[in-house]
């Protein structure tokens, strides 16, 4: 053995070192890191989702108002496609050969090995034709799914629409939604998405390297069955909803009706409305664009997004808060010379009633009376403490829901304007008092509210001191689960004893010869209400009525606003009376004054479109500008109260009470 024998150890040592290097790397990728394991899973595993049926929605009488309809999509997996008879395909789908080629190209561009849409929602006829010749088109398959159907074709804004998820939705959902899923985008479809959507099913399938399915994973152990969405029971009464939409035809405005004892919303009309079936399926884009292009903006959900000054309909709240505050007592009278002097400004009244008490003041909507009431409240602690008393008053009014969202189960609710003292500090410094904000006494100027808030105020008065959170869905799923927050009474901070006198005034407004809404008396039913005429700087005043019925044990509270309808008594009050009568008696008796549903339905109050270009397409910028101008004007108006109040008082003129049939809408004076 020579000394070269030792070189054996170097060679053997090298073998061992290299083996250890190999084992080290293997130890790392096999035991320490688990990246490879998940990569292997994602290589072979494909999740195929099964879409559950969306939950149906019933109205309060268990009539189906939202349901599903089966549709068929034609899917294609481009790399499985073999040359096929394009003419036969085109004929079956009733499209041109060119379209077939284009669609195939589009599908290829999306993915060559995943199934993508070739044609969405093919007709039943096409589906039937295709089924027979499907074997001739390898790579193609039909996929059935369901889309929404709204049998009554009404309440478009209320139901909202369902649409394919956007990348944004997918990101926000933290992994729940996948491209191609559908999601409720607005209305009830949006707010109850979590219940309506159900649970997606999953089938785990193994695929080989050539993307050919190789059977189920772990014998389907991890597969999930699709679970249908929850059935919802809506509080809506589709009968009066339909009546409401009919009455509001050719008008801009809103109706909200609430069952006072429960807070359940009975009618939720936004006018102009649209057929929700328009926003279903493949014509979505086209129809949506035409909705957007409508100058009367049907896409606005006016019951919760329309913000109007409550006008005189604010007066009952004003009265109740003043009574609770001790600023006046039920017997307080004021002298009405036909106007009220707020500093140098004259707030006009439409009548000269002389000494007037609260009950009559409400019935006749006396501006002078309520300006005095407001003056008493704010100056109760002396002229120096007006800011503090205003703040206190603001708190009390806010309890009724003004200036805040009521939390209805609909998206995009607005809260309306109701300024706190700080706001006036900013504008006037310390030098402001009741005369500065006097317009609020009569619900004008710097206070706005949504129709929902107004109806809710009525529900609170009907309940003599509390309201339940207004809501549209009263039962979720098979067990009819009710949200806890919907059974909580929200007190408005006015004692029950102060209500009778105000309610009597509201009764007189409808049921007495001197009432502002006497033309809206309902046979055999005592409806209490209050008219309002909202000054509108852009045109004719808005007609407002809020009320409830019957007077004792009220079943329905209602708010109606008809834009450009003029006086509260002329359109809003009669429309309310039809709604109330229909709900309480399921019929409408002939009226002695000859008012009919048909006549109101046929009346066209749509404002004339000034600008021709706007008629076609008002841009967002325009509408923003408009809004801005509007709000600027409003502030300005309240500074110079006179013109606003002047117009306001016109609303309460007794001479309004003429039959409006065959009469052109009253023009503004």
């Amino acid at each position, binding site marked *: 053995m020579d000394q070269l024998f030792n070189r054996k150890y170097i060679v053997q040592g090298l073998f061992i070192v290299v083996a250890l*290097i190999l084992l080290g790397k293997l130890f790392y990728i096999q035991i320490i890191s688990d990246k490879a394991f998940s990569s*292997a899973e994602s*290589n072979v595993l494909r999740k195929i989702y099964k879409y559950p049926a969306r939950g149906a929605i019933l109205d309060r009488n268990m009539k189906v108002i939202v349901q599903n309809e089966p549709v068929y999509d034609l899917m294609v997996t481009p790399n499985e496609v073999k040359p096929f008879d394009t003419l036969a395909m085109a004929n079956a789908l009733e499209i041109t050969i060119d379209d077939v080629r284009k669609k195939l190209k589009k599908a290829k561009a999306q993915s060559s090995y995943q199934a993508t849409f070739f044609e969405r929602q093919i007709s039943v006829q096409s589906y039937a034709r295709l089924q027979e010749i499907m074997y001739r088109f390898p790579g193609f398959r039909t996929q059935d799914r369901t889309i929404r159907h709204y049998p009554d074709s009404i309440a478009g804004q209320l139901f909202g629409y369902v649409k394919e998820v956007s990348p944004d939705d997918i990101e926000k959902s933290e992994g729940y939604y996948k491209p191609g899923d559908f999601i409720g985008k607005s209305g009830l479809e949006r707010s109850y998405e979590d219940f309506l959507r159900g649970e997606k099913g999953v089938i785990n399938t193994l695929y*080989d390297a050539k993307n050919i399915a190789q059977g189920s994973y772990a014998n389907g152990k991890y597969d999930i069955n699709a679970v249908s969405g929850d059935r919802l029971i809506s509080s809506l009464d589709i009968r009066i909803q339909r009546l409401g939409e009919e009455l509001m035809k050719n008008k801009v405005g809103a109706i909200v009706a609430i069952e006072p004892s429960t807070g359940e919303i009975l009618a939720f009309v936004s006018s102009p409305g649209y057929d929700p079936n328009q926003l279903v399926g493949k014509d979505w884009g086209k129809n949506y664009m035409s909705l957007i292009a409508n100058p009367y903006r049907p896409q606005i959900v006016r019951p919760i997004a329309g913000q109007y000054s409550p006008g005189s309909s604010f007066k009952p709240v004003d009265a109740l808060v003043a009574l609770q505050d001790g600023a006046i007592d039920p017997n307080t009278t004021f002298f009405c010379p036909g106007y009220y002097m707020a500093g140098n400004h004259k707030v006009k009244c439409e009548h000269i009633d002389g000494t007037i008490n609260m009950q009559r003041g409400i019935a006749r909507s006396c501006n002078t009376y309520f300006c005095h009431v407001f003056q008493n409240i704010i100056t109760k602690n002396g002229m120096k403490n007006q800011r503090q008393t205003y703040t206190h008053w603001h708190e009390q009014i806010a309890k009724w829901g003004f200036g805040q969202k009521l939390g209805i189960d609909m998206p995009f609710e607005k809260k309306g304007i109701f300024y706190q003292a700080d706001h006036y500090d900013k504008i006037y410094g310390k030098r402001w008092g009741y005369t500065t904000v006097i317009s609020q006494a009569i619900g004008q100027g710097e206070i706005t509210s949504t129709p929902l808030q107004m109806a809710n105020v009525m529900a609170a008065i009907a309940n003599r001191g509390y309201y339940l959170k207004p809501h549209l869905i009263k039962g979720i799923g098979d067990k009819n689960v009710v949200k806890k927050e919907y059974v909580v009474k929200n007190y408005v901070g006015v004692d029950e004893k102060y209500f009778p006198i105000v309610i009597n005034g509201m009764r007189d407004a409808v049921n007495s010869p001197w009432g502002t809404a006497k033309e809206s008396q309902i046979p055999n039913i005592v409806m209490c209400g209050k008219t309002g005429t909202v000054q509108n700087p852009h045109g004719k005043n808005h007609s407002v009525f809020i009320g409830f019925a019957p007077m004792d044990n009220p079943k329905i509270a209602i708010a109606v606003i008809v834009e450009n309808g003029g006086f509260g008594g002329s359109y809003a009050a009669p429309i309310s009376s039809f709604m109330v009568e229909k709900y309480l008696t399921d019929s409408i008796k002939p009226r002695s004054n000859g008012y009919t549903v048909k006549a109101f339905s046929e009346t066209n109050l749509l404002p004339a479109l000034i600008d021709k270009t706007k008629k076609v397409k008002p841009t967002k910028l325009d509408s923003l500008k408009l809004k801005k101008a509007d709000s600027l004007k409003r502030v300005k108006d309240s500074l110079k109260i006179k013109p606003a109040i002047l117009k306001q008082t016109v609303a309460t003129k007794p001479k309004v009470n003429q039959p409006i049939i065959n009469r052109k809408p009253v023009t503004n004076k």
Partner: protein
Amino acid sequence: MIQQQGSRFFFNVDWITVLIYIALCTIGFINVYASIPHHEGATTFDFASSYGKQLIYAITGLILGLSILLFDGRLFNVFAPFIYGATLFLLVVVLFVGRNVGGNQAWIPIGSFRLQPSEFAKFGTALLLARYVSTFNPKFRDIKSIVIAGLIVLAPLLLIMLQPDTGSALVFLAFMFPLYREGLSGYFLLIFLGMIVLFVADFLVPTYILILILTTIGGLFIYNNRRKQKIIISTVLVTIIAIAYLFVVKIAYEKVLAPHQRSRIELMLGLKADNKGAGYNVIQSQIAIGSGQATGRGFLQGTQTKYGYVPAQSTDFIFSTIGEEWGFVGCSVVIGLYIFLLLRLINLAERQRSTFSRVYGYSVACIFFFHVFINIGMTIGIIPVIGIPLPFISYGGSSLWSFTILLFIFLKLDSNRMGFI
């Protein structure tokens, strides 16, 4: 004497090595079986399928090996030049009549079989090298013996490069180790190692930094040996050559290597990520092996294997099947078997009385070592993709037979170790 030898014949064969051989072939067959997709439906054993053929190759290989044991060991010494000449001839022939498979002109079709001469060139070269060393007993201190040994190795290497089958050619570098054992200076190994290190470093580190490092090391070395003029001169020379090498590599890399080879090297060095193209094999192979985790997914349960995610699964990437279905435990067993085999072969080589047997034994062990290291290293991404088979395990008749012949010639020589060759 000869009679006596015959009666002790079976005791003289190293049966432990034969058992390891059989174990590795069995592992090979099992995993080739597992890596053929869509076999689940097959109820009968199918000899036309890959695994059926592999069984035939294994059985005929064993018969071939055992029959080699019946030869007179001296024949290999005597016929070494002829065998070498024949394999060289085949390597030339294949360039003209060969069938092109996967870009390499490496196969000679014979009937329904295909012969891969480069596989047989290995033992031809090993035999001639052993013959040369045993006959002339050079200590490789002179240039002449180094050149002759070098030519013996380089002739088949260059012919294989022409196919071009770089992977198979690389294996011939394994002959450096037997030469080292017989006296070739260790500097050759160090220089070779240094060339690889510099080659890799040249891609990862800017050239000027490498030059800085090299001159610093050289400078320190000179400072330490400042009284020895010879060392100073040789250090300066080595440093200059090393720096020149850096530039040559860069140029040669662009001009000599094919694009697919360049991209394989860049992928391995992490200079480039490519999940679909050239990197697909390596990534899928690593996913397969990694997903096996500690104990593997179980026989026939590997999804990467079953559903064909790793290309060349039954041949060059067979180790990914082992890794996926048998996990770290299975990998360790296989590597353990190889190391046991390699160490045993070296030990067997060292107990030879004849230089011929020892050199041949070293050659066999080092060829196996190169195959195992390069193949497994490639499947787990520490070596660029070089398409050479895993001995006894990869699917394929030519490789299995040539490895069997390599091994059993040595076993025959070993069983004759007491005699004179």
